[in-house]
């Protein structure tokens, strides 16, 4: 069953097209992340869902009810914002019960709901504090409790973690996912942080220039990106200009590989993107390898990133090696094997 549906939503601000024909369906209880660079339209999509922006074309519906022309305060959606949005004049408890008061929930039921929601985010003991007496992470958790207290039909999260430091961000991210799964609440999460999106989403929508480039599971987004933009935006890639030499067969320098997504006439150039972990170090005796010299080695803890300058084609690539057994020093000559089975994306007609 679908909970939130965008149908052909278009939104412009003057000459700028913020959203171009957005079609998106959130299933009940699902968490979808909209991921993309600044200005890609992800926040606009969220604001259209919340009712803060009215679309120029298309519609937004929740559980079958068209809400396109319904004002924001009548939509029953909960929202957590990027900047701290707690009302400074109200205590934690009063902030959480704000939405219940506007819904005229009776006193005893209201108090019970506030206590229950604050318990969910583990902030019961701080209920009498004021926002300025809380840390950033605590403020965002109160904001989450405030949004959840009204039992919204959809929870909208507008980069709620971006103002927090790395450690709090990770733990709050996990808490959000835990609560979302526990309560089974349909959630639209907007972020520019790919790690965040991949970590907590059921599906990820990658956006660019107001368009949804791909909507798929985090694994698919990473392993089978729909196009070069998605591949480049999510994770790191090595880019090669390859020549098609047969059906799904390409040549990169001296090596020949099978790339399932490579299509085009023999002799045409295509852009092939390969993830750093799909390049592995090989023995010098192995055939069909790319040869190069390590120019930089960066220890990352669980893995090491090597920058290798290849002889043919003349380019630099990044290789992720696991553990210390494969570590190489700067200046070492290495041979690389390309694993073409996954993570390879070919874009026909690209010559640079």
């Amino acid at each position, binding site marked *: 069953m679908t909970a939130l549906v965008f149908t052909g939503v278009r939104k412009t601000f003057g000459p700028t097209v913020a959203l171009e024909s957005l079609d998106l369906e959130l299933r009940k209880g699902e968490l979808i992340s909209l991921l993309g660079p600044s200005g890609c339209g992800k926040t606009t999509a969220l604001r259209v869902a919340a009712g803060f922006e009215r679309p120029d074309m298309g519609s937004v519906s929740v559980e079958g009810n068209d809400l396109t022309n319904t004002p924001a*305060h009548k*939509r029953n959606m909960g929202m957590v914002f990027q900047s701290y949005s707690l009302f400074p004049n109200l205590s934690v408890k009063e902030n959480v019960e*704000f939405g219940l008061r*506007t819904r005229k929930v009776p006193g005893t039921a209201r108090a019970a709901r506030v206590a229950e929601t604050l318990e969910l985010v583990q902030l019961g003991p701080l209920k009498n*504090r004021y926002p300025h007496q809380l840390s950033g992470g605590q403020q965002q958790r109160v904001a989450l409790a405030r949004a959840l207290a009204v039992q919204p039909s959809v929870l909208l999260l507008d980069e709620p973690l971006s103002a927090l430091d790395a450690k709090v961000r990770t733990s709050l991210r996990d808490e959000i996912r835990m609560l979302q799964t526990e309560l089974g609440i349909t959630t639209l999460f907007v972020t520019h942080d790919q790690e965040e999106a991949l970590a907590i989403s059921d599906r990820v929508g990658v956006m660019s220039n107001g368009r949804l480039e791909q909507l798929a599971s985090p694994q698919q987004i990473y392993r089978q990106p729909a196009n070069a933009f998605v591949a480049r935006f999510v994770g790191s890639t090595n880019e090669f200009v390859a020549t098609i030499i047969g059906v799904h067969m390409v040549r990169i320098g001296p090596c020949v590989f099978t790339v399932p997504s490579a299509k085009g006439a023999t002799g045409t150039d295509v852009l092939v993107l390969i993830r750093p972990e799909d390049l592995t170090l090989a023995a010098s005796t192995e055939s069909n390898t790319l040869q190069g010299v390590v120019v930089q080695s960066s220890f990352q803890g669980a893995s090491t990133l090597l920058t290798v300058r290849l002889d043919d084609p003349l380019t630099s690539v990044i290789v992720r090696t696991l553990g210390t057994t494969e570590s190489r020093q700067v200046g070492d000559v290495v041979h690389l094997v390309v694993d073409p089975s996954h993570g390879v994306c070919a874009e026909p007609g690209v010559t640079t």
Partner: protein
Amino acid sequence: MAAMSSETTVNNRMNLLGRFGRLGPILVVVATALFFVLPLLAMARFAFQSVPMISLGWSTLFKRWSFEGVTKAFKDEEFRTALGLSLRLAAGTVALTLALLVPTTLWVHVRIPKARTFVEFLTVLPYVIPPIALVAGILPLKPHARWFLNSNYSLIPFYAVLALPFTFRSLDAGVKALDVKTLVDASRSLGAGWGTTIRRVIVPNIRSAIVSASFLTAAVVLGEYAIARTLLKRTLPAFMQQYQGREPQGGMALALAALVGTTALFALLSVLTRPRRAREVDEPATTTVTRQAMA
């Protein structure tokens, strides 16, 4: 020897400079204070000493001081009427100004931020155009709007316009200090309409700005003379001007009392609008605890 002597001279100069460096600011403050206080003291002597003008000098400095001038003025029936009218006009102007400007400032910040500079320019106009020009523009309309201009309260809209430069700036600064767009969005997403949002979220958070705008508006109303005189209204400043002609000493005493009153008003304003206390508790996030508890 010569070297030692020149060193001593340099040291002396530096000591002198150092002393002046310390004394300089104090001298400036004292000079400024005298510049402001001496005329007030002269006013006070004229108003509260029952000594003929010609005899006012050092020898009579402590003689025959009395508050008779001001008490006499306070007892004057006309004074009470004028003061009452001015206070009612001040209250009315404050109410009208806030009712118009709080939503306007909010709307400008939330919906049309690009128009802020234009609105700011508009609100400065009463500062640039003399009040008398405003009245001159209204007088030709008098035959058509006699029912309105005959009422004492017809002054309220004029005063609201005159107070615009102060009130808009004050409210604008208050709203600017808040992330008002996010607060409005948060409030609306929680089911509050515009009325509830203004009443429960915005107004309590710009309380200082509202208090400050109200006092400034009141000060403008209590001191305005040109419009009241031209429209023949007996407000406090108009009464004071007329009373001065009749009772020079009492008039001066009233002027001094008004000055003290306004100063007290602004002192009260600065107390009421003191910035919020600095963050009291800066407790680290309890995330670790939470995670452990949840695990």
